[in-house]
């Protein structure tokens, strides 16, 4: 186990450093000059030269990378060019929001997808199952900006029940979470159905039935454990993806999450902001991954010794 832990941790650190290099240089080679973007169609050569100097853009790329990485490690994240605010403040505002959005969206999806998947696997020929199956098809095809706008139209404009945007109250989260949860529920319920029907075909299930266990016990005690592994993995992936922001939903609902921050930063080539935020996202995902791996390793010895 100690070797497994060391291996995983080393992999984690190596990936983090590699990602920092890739992020830095990818942002550098994007066409479009940050100083030029800030000045726009009023740029004069003098103003441009001074701004470049102010932003340290006249220094060699390698020097800037090393300085940035060193500062990042020390928690000195610098000031965003786009917002004239410390990157730390911007991150402190958007990450908690994205975290809440991601948790709620995945949580709601799981709550809806697990029973739906079980039903579809248990009684595939029944009308409710067929209806749900058709619904998941539709759900996966829904573009999020469209669902979002439709939900606002119905619940905020027509019925006046929920706010059209913003996170001034917790009610503001209902529509964005629904928008995010709909397509994810569709995906998860399909994984749940496949996982469940696979599990139900296993020998040990037949054995369980044969030894006279009741149907609910067979389903929920024996089949569900194995049948839900895939769903949990996919839900974990979805969570990680949502953590990096949900540009469309944030834009439609005017929420200041990680997605909007990254989009605005990238469009303006706000290097300190983009590099640092991407780095945080990557670290969070890697940490999440590491924890997940270690947990699996603990639970399942087969994985440890691979």
């Amino acid at each position, binding site marked *: 186990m100690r070797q497994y832990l060391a291996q995983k941790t080393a992999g984690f650190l190596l990936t983090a450093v590699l990602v920092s290099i890739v992020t830095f240089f990818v942002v550098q080679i994007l066409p479009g000059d940050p100083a030029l973007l800030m000045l726009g169609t009023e740029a004069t050569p003098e103003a441009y030269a001074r701004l470049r100097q102010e932003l340290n853009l006249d220094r060699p790329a390698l020097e800037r990378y090393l300085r940035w990485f060193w500062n990042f490690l020390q928690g000195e994240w610098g000031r965003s060019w786009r917002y004239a605010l410390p990157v730390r403040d911007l991150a402190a505002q958007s990450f908690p929001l994205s975290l809440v959005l991601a948790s709620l969206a995945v949580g709601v999806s799981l709550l809806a997808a697990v029973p739906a998947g079980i039903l579809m696997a248990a009684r595939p020929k029944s009308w409710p199952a067929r209806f749900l199956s058709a619904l998941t098809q539709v759900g996966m095809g829904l573009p999020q900006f469209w669902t979002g706008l439709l939900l606002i139209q119905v619940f905020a404009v027509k019925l006046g029940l929920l706010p059209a945007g913003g996170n001034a109250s917790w009610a503001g989260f209902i529509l964005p979470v629904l928008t995010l949860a709909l397509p994810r529920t569709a995906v998860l319920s399909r994984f749940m159905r496949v996982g469940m029907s696979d599990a139900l075909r296993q020998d040990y299930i037949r054995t369980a039935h044969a030894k006279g266990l009741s149907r609910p016990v067979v389903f929920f005690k024996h089949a569900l454990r194995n049948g839900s592994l895939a769903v949990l993995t996919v839900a974990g992936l979805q969570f990680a993806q949502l953590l990096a922001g949900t540009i469309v939903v944030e834009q439609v609902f005017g929420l200041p999450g990680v997605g909007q921050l990254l989009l605005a930063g990238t*469009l303006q*080539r706000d290097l300190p902001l983009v590099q640092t935020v991407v780095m945080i996202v990557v670290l969070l995902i890697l940490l999440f991954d590491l924890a997940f791996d270690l947990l699996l390793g603990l639970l399942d010895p087969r994985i440890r010794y691979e």
Partner: protein
Amino acid sequence: MKRRVLYMVFLSVLTVFAVSGPGFAEVLNIAIPQDPDSFDPVKTIAAATAEVAFNIYEGLVKATPAGGVEGALASSWTVNEAGTVYTFQLREAVFHDGTPVTPADVVSALNRARDPGVAVRAGELSMIKDVRAVERGVEIELAEPNGAFLYALAEVYASIYPAHASDLARRPIGTGPYYLEEWTPNQRLGLRRFDRHWSGETPYFEQANFLIIPDENSMVLNLKAGRVNVIPRLEASVLHQVENDPGITVLSFPMNVVQVFSINNARPPFDDLRVRRALALGVNREEILFGAAWGHGALLDSALSPSMAGFYNDQLREVNPYNPELAKELLKEAGQENLSFTLTLPANYPLHVQAGELVAQQWKALGLDVELQIVEWGTWLDRVYTQRDYDVSVIGLAGRLDPHAILVRYTTGNSRNFFNFSNERYDELIEEGLRAYGDERRSIYLEAQEILAKELPGVFVMDPPQLVAMAKGIQGFRNYPTYVVDVAGLYR
């Protein structure tokens, strides 16, 4: 248990109503698509900042809706006979932090604004030779008479703030009718009424929130749902969603932006006036106005918008009428009937992209081979604006209060002249315009506009519409020739 759940649901519905219903204090919510960049007047570049900052900062003078200037922190001013020394008398005014406005504050703010080591647009105040404090006022000495000077003082970069202010970027301290109370990036700027404004007037709204809503469809839905009261810049593409809504008023103003198909005058065969003229004659501007801006906006013939009422030349409509036959003849004459070129469009401006797609069809009808190239804004600025490596492109150039600031762009060798346009007489006129006043100055700029219409650095298309959508009942929207939202004028 069941009852408790029901009770919770009931409570939450109540909360939702309480939160989304009208509040007690008079609050105005204005939707804007993006955050300001920095509230430091000498560092800001984005138009989005000027829009909000107008309510927070004031200069010695400020712009009027008609496009003139009037006293703000200066109650009056006198000019010496040579036109080189302006003496401004200061009003009794206090900053948002409660300290009084002193001549020393004005001197320090203006000196900072013209210091090229600090200020991004120091060049625009380079006419100033010296700023001195005098008894209850300041004296500004110019190197030579300059007709654009007072207008320059009304721009954001000439705002007055306390000499002791630090961190203006995040915590602006001005003298305007509102002060910035709270700024949550990507979400909201909260402005609150400043009750000690020198005018003694009290704006109607106690609180004004600028809500950041990047998506134009969701902006409209927020207006319909009552979360937003004013959309100062509605995208033309969503106009149809509000036009016939009885609860919404839509106003349309010229934006004082010049949309122009810029032509690279230095690159053959566009150095041939006949080719440029053919391109101009081949453009059906009305079709573009209808196709890209839904018929709103004003057609242009030269580089000033009609909203620059005091200087606009309205006699140029017949210089380049839509005439494809004549265009073909000119192309033949120039030996360019089969001309093929690239039209570069900035992807982030739907209006310009649509205009470009329409004009490409019109030019193709002349027998030309037009290749469309849509590029991202950063690439556009780099390639078209800075490197000037392009054939034909399209852009909207933001207006200013003073014609010089707009027209100087087309002079030979100007760093913002990405047209590579050059005309000796034009250069002379722009020089003279700075030294002239009144009618003389006006006639100089009329001639300059005529030269641009005839010599064609590019094809001028339209001043796009500024569409304002407001909830019924909100009144008093004042349109300015600059990019601002004047909150103090609004009431319910």
